[in-house]
């Protein structure tokens, strides 16, 4: 049997759907762990924790590789999904006049393509909201904070400092310029004095805050709705992935099904909850 026949077989196509889908489940766990930094610590501590996490994500070579695997998985899973749906529709050119699919299968399992499309639309919106600003436009200001220090006459003066890797106090003034996104250079001698952090935390918090963003309510609703679609997609998809890989066992399969349903509720639920918490802050 030729390699082409094998790769084009219905079983291998489903294996690819399962592998990319289950990989994206692990991505969700990582993404959620990062987002938890937004709510676990508050104030300046929370801002530091999230921006340090964002810096790690943008600079670790292993994460870089993983990010490309993630982009590939999303695109492949989506296109393969569309192609399979097209083939499946073609396999029944004429439908039934009267059909009762609810008698034999769950609703999410029958609407995977529509749920997946909703998730894809969300991913595009979500990337336009944050990924685009951070990765392409690169116009996010660096993390700086204001402190009050006593001046020469004893009166308190407010001064802004960059938050840096070695906690070095670098004042935010004309003497310091930013190069390569995060490098802080002393303008007069052109020497790198420290490295700062991109303030993604403020971007995220402002985005979902009704005080900063007039459309915050719309986006919170959109994100919560999209997480519902993701939850239903995972409700069927998680366990379905194992079945496609041939992993079905009388002892373990019920466990996989329960774990999948738990995963489908908890992970998207937490993502949605974080946006609501920020909105209510």
């Amino acid at each position: 049997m030729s390699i082409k026949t094998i790769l084009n077989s219905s079983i291998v196509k489903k294996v690819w759907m399962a592998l990319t889908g289950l990989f994206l489940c692990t991505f969700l766990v990582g993404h959620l762990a990062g987002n938890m930094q937004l709510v676990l610590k508050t104030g300046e501590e929370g801002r530091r924790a999230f921006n340090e996490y964002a810096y790690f994500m943008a600079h670790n070579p292993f994460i870089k590789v993983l990010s490309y695997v993630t982009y590939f998985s999303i695109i492949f899973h989506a296109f393969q999904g569309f192609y399979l749906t097209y083939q499946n529709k073609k396999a029944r050119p004429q439908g039934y006049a009267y059909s009762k699919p609810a008698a034999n299968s769950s609703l999410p399992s029958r609407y995977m393509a529509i749920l997946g499309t909703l998730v894809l639309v969300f991913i595009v919106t979500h990337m336009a909201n944050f990924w685009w600003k951070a990765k392409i436009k690169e116009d996010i200001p660096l993390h700086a904070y204001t402190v009050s220090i006593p001046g020469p006459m004893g009166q308190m003066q407010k001064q802004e400092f960059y938050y840096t890797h070695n906690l070095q106090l670098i004042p935010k003034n004309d003497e310091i310029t930013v190069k390569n996104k995060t490098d802080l250079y002393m303008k007069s001698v052109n020497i790198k004095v420290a490295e700062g952090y991109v303030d993604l935390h403020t971007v995220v918090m402002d985005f979902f805050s009704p005080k900063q963003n007039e459309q915050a309510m719309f986006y919170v609703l959109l994100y919560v709705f999209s997480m519902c679609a993701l939850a239903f997609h995972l409700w069927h998809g998680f366990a379905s992935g194992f079945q496609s890989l041939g992993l079905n066992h009388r002892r373990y399969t019920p466990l996989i099904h329960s774990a999948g349903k738990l995963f489908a509720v908890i992970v998207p639920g937490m993502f949605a909850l974080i946006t609501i918490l920020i909105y209510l802050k």
Partner: protein
Amino acid sequence: MATKFINITLKIWRQQNSQSKGSLETYTLNKVSTDSSFLEMLDQLNEQLISDQKSPVAFDHDCREGICGMCSLYINGRAHGPATGTTTCQLHMRKFKDGETIYVEPWRSKAFPIVKDLVVDRSAFDRIQQAGGFISINTSGKTMDANAIPVPKQNADKAFEAAACIGCGACVAACKNSSAMLFVGAKVSQYALLPQGKVEAQERALNMVRQMDEEGFGNCTNTGACEVECPKGISIENIARMNREFLLAASKSNK
């Protein structure tokens, strides 16, 4: 249970031949015994149609005791009707109410073209079987004693469960994708679990799946509709086994 008689309205798919465009026709049938099977009810309708000088409804049937796999019919939105683990021939009219409207449609799948009315061409299943659903050891003449080859009891049981498939095509009819994976999974499993089937196990999985794909069945999305509607209760565990067999064969086979 005392015999009752019910009056029903039937909406039946009528189609002259594979080329013509069919439509749902409405018939009223009175005095149907609740003890009659669904096929006997259709016989009664055909007698009425013949006496009215109309063409009888064509439908598949043979043994009428639930083992041949010839009867089909998508009844009131479900393959083989509302009863679980039952073929259409074993479905009785006591499952229906007096005055009920019953929809009767043929299996719908590109791979099962309609021949006439409710009769579909299921030879795609035959071609899948011919591609690998057999063993090539001698089973006639000088046969070996059946117990000479030890078979673990649990494998024998699972193979037997898979072998219960009668190839009726309800799995394809019920699947929203018209996928034949439960049928092929059952056939692959039936032999893969037994030592006699091991010889051609790799080629069998590859060839049967290739033939299934060529016939134009859809892809499995694990909705599980097939195992619910299967009159023989074949589990989708067999689909997972076929997936394993296929992947193993694809990585090991030299052919």
